[in-house]
């Protein structure tokens, strides 16, 4: 009888301690500013707040480091970054960190893969637009459109082949008048670097959003098996909304990256006409094939580059590029509101494709 009672007591104790079972991992979120001119959000599931803080720390460290290296507007004492390369155009090769070499080489690869649609040597042309845009935003009465002549002159200095990279010496040299602008690739590259660092550190449930450039490491841990990434409606006036009503759709993803490009980002107006920042290398003017693109790719660098490429390329070429790049899907929104999808895109989408997140 005593033995039985002991057993019974033990069972009762176990039963009453049900309440002590640790809850499922919690979702934590944090954000930081100060890198890549945007806010970087880190969202993840962890058993303790500490565990999550460490992950966020890794992301922050990665972004902060690359921010300095890839900056084209500011110099940092003791650091040779891309601005340094630009400042020494036509003067001398600049010794830089291996990560800059890697970025530029990746950029060159993507230049040929996208048939020149994404070109980090477009700096001179982009600089012209940057200047006019700055004026147009600061004093709208003086807003003006760059002249074709001005742009053509600048376009002469955009040969990516002329970016001389010496891997052994870790130097980069560009000719006088040339300018490297990594805007179309840097954020994606940094996001992927952060994702890689997290994976190396053993994390498997983190979502990074660098100003909307989204990379998923693994999947959520709250019963769902996919993250929900809202696809912004380019025609919506709202700056940001997680309300289903204001989004075009929701992409359910795990382990991939999602990046959007659109005419709603960075624009200025001249006589009521919008001039955005995604310049078509053919026309040297803001691309007008569509008003928004969202790309899902395995790699965040690819997603960033391809979202720009898919936006500035004509529709057929853009579709071909996406279909021919493995593990990549895209969605285009046209001026009239029509939506075009690559063959596998619908499978990711909640409304258009009936995708679910396993909740």
């Amino acid at each position: 009888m005593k033995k039985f009672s002991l057993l019974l007591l033990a069972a009762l104790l176990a039963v009453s301690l049900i309440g002590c079972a640790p809850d499922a991992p919690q979702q934590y979120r944090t954000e930081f500013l100060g890198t890549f001119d945007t806010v970087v959000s880190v969202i993840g599931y962890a058993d303790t707040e500490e565990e999550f803080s460490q992950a966020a720390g890794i992301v922050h460290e990665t972004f902060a480091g690359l921010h300095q290296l890839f900056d084209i507007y500011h110099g940092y004492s003791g650091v040779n970054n891309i601005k340094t390369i630009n400042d020494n155009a036509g003067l001398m090769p600049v010794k830089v960190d291996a990560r800059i070499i890697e970025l530029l080489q990746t950029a060159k690869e993507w230049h040929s893969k996208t048939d020149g649609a994404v070109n980090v040597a477009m700096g001179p042309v982009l600089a012209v637009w940057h200047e006019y845009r700055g004026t147009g935003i600061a004093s709208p009465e003086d807003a003006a459109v760059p002249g074709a002549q001005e742009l053509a002159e600048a376009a002469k200095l955009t040969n990516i082949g002329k970016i001389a990279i010496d891997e052994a010496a870790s130097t980069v040299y560009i000719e006088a008048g040339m300018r490297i602008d990594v805007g179309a690739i840097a954020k994606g590259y940094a996001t992927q670097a952060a994702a890689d660092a997290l994976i190396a550190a053993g994390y498997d449930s983190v979502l990074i959003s660098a100003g909307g450039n989204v990379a998923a490491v693994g999947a959520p841990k709250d019963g769902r098996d996919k993250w929900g990434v809202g696809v912004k409606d380019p025609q919506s006036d709202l700056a940001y909304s997680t309300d289903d009503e204001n989004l075009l759709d929701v992409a359910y993803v795990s382990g991939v990256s999602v990046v959007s490009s659109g005419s709603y980002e960075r624009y200025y107006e001249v006589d009521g006409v919008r001039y955005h920042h995604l310049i078509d290398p053919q026309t040297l003017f803001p691309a007008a094939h569509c008003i928004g693109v969202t790309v899902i790719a395995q790699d965040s660098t690819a997603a960033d580059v391809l979202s720009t490429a898919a936006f500035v390329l004509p529709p057929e070429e853009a579709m071909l590029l996406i279909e021919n790049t493995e593990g990549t899907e895209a969605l285009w929104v046209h001026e009239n509101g029509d939506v075009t999808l690559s063959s596998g895109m619908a499978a990711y989408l909640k409304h258009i494709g009936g995708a679910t997140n396993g909740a």
Partner: protein
Amino acid sequence: MKIRLGDILLAAAALAAALLLLFVRAPQDAPAVAVVLRGGEEIARINLQNPETEEVRIDEPGIVIRIEDGRIRFEASSCPDQTCVHTGWLSRAGDIAVCLPNEVIVKVEGGETDDIDVVAE
């Protein structure tokens, strides 16, 4: 009546277990969504930060739920116990109030819109 050693140990154990549970509850961020369930079915989902409504009435049986200042509570109920009403304001993720006789549950869930984590742009 003699109090024995076992009594004290048992009482201490119960006390310890209770305190442990109270403090081990993970701290939460300010959550945003309150869910009202009736008979197991969701009848309302309210964003506490930007509530769509200030009041949820379930007329039959008579239950009134109030939302105010990012919190939610049972304001009135037709049940004899009034346990649900006495639970008071709920605001943290995991907070829950139950009206057993009427099978109505009000609970607070953490996070924003349940399945959208972030927006790509």
